[in-house]
């Protein structure tokens, strides 16, 4: 069947089987491999992207269901070569290690800050509680989101701390 949707602001078309999962459509038909997958049971959240402006687990949506809808992925965060404050925060605060859960975490963080520009730590932890990270123990992810909240205009990379 034919599907048409807006992905990162551009209209895309695809000829897909009805059973095709949205995550596979995004990754394989559109080549946007920044969105990942990591489980069979809709738990891990590495597939999180925005569907109609909300974070959603794209492994649990059929591409057919997204026909006529709006999708936003991690590839859309950077604008004209400028990283989003969330991306900068993840860099500044070492909010990623292997990078596999990171796109999903950042999409949720971006949504959170769009709706709650100054979230406290508990709110941040609650917002990402549906997504698993095996590397960071979550601490630096929370700090990264706080950094983005405190630097909404995305301050330039600060001077590095140096130890002799």
């Amino acid at each position, binding site marked *: 069947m034919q599907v048409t949707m807006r992905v990162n602001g551009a209209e895309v078309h695809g000829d897909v089987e009805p059973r095709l999962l949205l995550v596979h459509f995004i990754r394989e038909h559109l080549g946007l491999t920044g969105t990942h997958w990591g489980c069979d049971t809709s738990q891990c959240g590495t597939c999180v992207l925005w569907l109609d402006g909300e*974070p959603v*687990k794209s492994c649990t*949506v*059929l591409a057919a269901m997204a026909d006529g809808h709006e999708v936003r992925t991690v590839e859309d965060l950077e604008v004209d070569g400028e990283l989003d404050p969330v991306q900068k925060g993840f860099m500044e605060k070492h909010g990623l290690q292997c990078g596999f859960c990171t796109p999903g975490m950042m999409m949720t963080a971006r949504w959170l800050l769009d709706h709650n520009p100054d979230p406290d730590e508990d709110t941040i932890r609650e917002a990402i509680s549906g997504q698993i990270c095996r590397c960071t123990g979550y601490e630096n992810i929370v700090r990264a989101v706080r950094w983005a909240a405190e630097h909404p205009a995305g301050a330039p990379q600060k001077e590095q701390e140096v130890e002799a």
Partner: protein
Amino acid sequence: MQTPAPVDYARATSIDHALQLMEERGTDARLIAGGHSLIPMMRLRIARPECVIDINDLAELDYIRVEEGELRIGAMTRHAALLASPVVGEHYAIFHDAERRIADPPVRNRGTIGGSLCQGDPAEDLAAVASALRADLVLRTSQGTRTVPAREFHLGPYETAIDDAEMLTEIRVPIRPGVSSAYEKVKRRAGDWAVASAGAYLVLRDGVVADVGIGLTAVGAPHFCAESAEVYLLGKAPTEEHLRATSQLAADACTPRADQRGPVEYKRHLAGELTLRVLRRSIERAEGSA
């Protein structure tokens, strides 16, 4: 990641269209709303519908309103919307308490109250909420509608009173002046299904419990509620002694099954303990000390 078996897809443009598609495709077709019960089962190939009927366009089923003395919730209302709704929170904190602990944020953006109730999972939190509140469920076919009490809706694990080519459209909860409510859930980890959950509402009048409902999930409580416990507490003062006796009755009414979440004796204990806590909490809220 696992992938579904081949399936057809149809998108409903209205309730009537959905019902018509259901009639045409028969029992091999499944409605798909949030999809977070159905699609995981399809991926594991436990569910193999021949057709999915997508009802996500049915905005006419996505609402929360107060009408004719009832809180009326459209079946397509997302968990996230219920959690965020001031109207719901104002009348029935039990919904917010429960929604806060159902699944996780991205899942709540898609899952619906209708989908959750129709899935009929024996550990479904909203089943306990609906039963506790003595809600009514509105079912519709192309021939008309009927109303089934929540307490008669669930017939067994994954089995509900919904007929072929019939759809749940609305959940109705009577607005009770002076009501307070609460929900508690024990889980092994954030997002997990309940080991046990309890929810209650009550209305105090002249120092006694004038109205009460107690719902339980994941513990094999018949119809997700504890009628004998409710009957006991009705008309009594909300003393600690009475609350404990009520909770014990609730625990006795359960038939929990042992599994990785816990043995029978633990779950039964939780049924009592959580009933006690939600009753206490409801009273605290009624007294304004919440």
